[in-house]
């Protein structure tokens, strides 16, 4: 691989050089991410077969706010359920059943509770799938996945050359010390 061109980001703009370091051990991948970041490299992502704990902190990812979607869904569900029961029983067609007031709040709690859970669950999963762009696909291989091994036993660290200051020689030197089972350099349209 010639090293002269790799110091500069691709002139095509959208096409960038990527370096992947594949490990067979989660702790090595974790150590690699920490070492690369400590050395000033920007690690784009790490693809793993399971949720390696501590990897999000090592990558410096902020805490997810997915819980807000759950809360919003739950509030919406509770509102819809209480509102609808109130409307049908007390506004649209008031019925006196067993001498109770048309707005018998305790009797509305079970249905409201269930709909709160239902809406919150859909909001959580829907938001998660939409934000991570997960949807049914015809294409068999996701373009963002660095090889099929990451759903089996490979922990792949992905480094992208983003600017002219990138030091490929230093990266290769570091990679040798970190002991990946495989390193690949390639191009990716970002």
């Amino acid at each position, binding site marked *: 691989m010639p090293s002269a061109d790799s110091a500069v980001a691709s002139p095509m703009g959208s096409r960038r050089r990527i370096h992947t370091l594949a490990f067979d051990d989660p702790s090595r991948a974790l150590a690699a991410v920490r070492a690369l970041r400590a050395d000033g490299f920007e690690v784009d992502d790490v693809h793993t*077969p399971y949720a390696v704990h501590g990897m999000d902190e090592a990558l410096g990812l902020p805490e997810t706010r997915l819980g807000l979607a759950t809360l919003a869904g739950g509030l919406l569900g509770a509102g819809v359920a209480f509102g609808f029961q109130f409307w049908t029983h007390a506004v649209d067609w008031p019925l006196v059943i067993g001498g109770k007031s048309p707005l018998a709040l305790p009797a509305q709690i079970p249905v409201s509770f269930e709909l709160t859970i239902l809406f919150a669950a859909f909001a959580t999963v829907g938001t*998660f799938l939409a934000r991570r762009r997960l949807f049914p696909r015809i294409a068999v291989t996701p373009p963002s996945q660095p090889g099929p091994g990451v759903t089996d036993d490979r922990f792949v660290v992905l480094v992208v050359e983003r600017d002219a200051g990138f030091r490929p020689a230093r990266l290769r030197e570091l990679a040798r010390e970190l002991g990946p089972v495989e390193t690949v350099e390639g191009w990716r349209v970002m």
Partner: protein
Amino acid sequence: MSAGAEHVEELILGNPTFSQVTNEIASPMERRPGPAWWGAFLTAVSVLTLGVVLIGYTMATGIGVWGLNRTVGWGYDITNFVFWVGIGHAGTLISAILLLFRQRWRTSIARAAEGMTIFAVLCAAIFPLIHMGRPWLAFWVFPYPNTRGPISVNFRSPLLWDVFAISTYFTVSLLFWYVGLIPDLATMRDRSTGWRRRIYAFLALGWDGGTRTWQRYEKACVLLAGLATPLVVSVHTIVSFDFATSVIPGWHTTIFPPYFVAGAVFSGFAMVITLLLVTRKVLGLERYITASHFEKMARVLLTTGMIVGFAYATELCIALYSGNRYERFTFENRAFGPYAWAYWTMVACNVLVPQVFWWARARRSALVLFVAACLVNVGMWFERFNIIVTSLHRDYLPSSWSYYTPTLVEMGILLGSFGLFFTCFLLFVRFAPVVAFHEVKLTLSEQRETAHAVR
């Protein structure tokens, strides 16, 4: 047990490599099914067909082909409904509640238990549907704009609460199960070819295993577990409201919600044990579903069995202490009346049988576990039968007392629901990983780290 073994409990035996985990769990789906699977599948489908035919016969002829009478209006149908809903509860307990409590042993068995939940709720849903007599009009139970007013459904009826509880429970369980499956479907996508690969790819939603996705994924799972936990408690609570909010002696008790939930977990764990003992043997998953898993489930069985036994005792005590003669009569009648045989079958199976699990040797013996779990299933079916039928058959007017005997049609439909359950489960073990790859790999890596730290 050596000193080290107390700290490092091996949940996955023999320290396999990650790719070994993938291969071993995926292999039952990739090889052609053997005679054992085909035998079981054809039996299940035959029994299911019998059930479908008998349901068709009931619909064509009328509910008169069942043994119900004017006094006993709820018999096998509602008994089976409560039984199957209860079976489902163990799956949610294992997948959601044990996730919140960070019980690592759940990872190997959660997927199968969640599958069991969905199939059991499916079986449960059949019974109210056919019990209402005209299943093609079942949509009437949901509120929708109609030409009858439009008047809406009665939101104050516990039976309507049940419609919402069961449909929410089914939907959320399915959602939770599918979210759990996504990374594993991606694993299957990456190792299969041809049309199987296309189907797995379609269902895996383009999963790429990136850390951002995993971070949100784990959060989503914890949030869903947090939602499923109160949901599962609410579902059997609401099922118990079907009875508890009525004024029938034997039904009208405040103890019902906790009593039903404990009973549901009890029967569900019995079914998980029964299913997994067979599954792990047939699929060769002894490394992942170990004696230690069964030992823990046996402890749950013992605990919930005693809660249920305590509830039986409380019921009797309150019936005696309340001074209500109708209440007292109902319980005397339950224990010593015409249905005494059903009552004592229940007590023997649910209270006495689990006591065997005080002994560690019983908790580790596959044979004892299997027999005891089957007996608990029988006992828990009889619990619902007792609650429903013995409370109804002798009401306030002795002139209307009667005895309910199920017909062969009802028995056939119950059998048919087992056929549906096992058909679904057998298809599931063929097409989806019965043990979660990603969760087992996480457990495995933690197990290695702990082992390393202790050494």
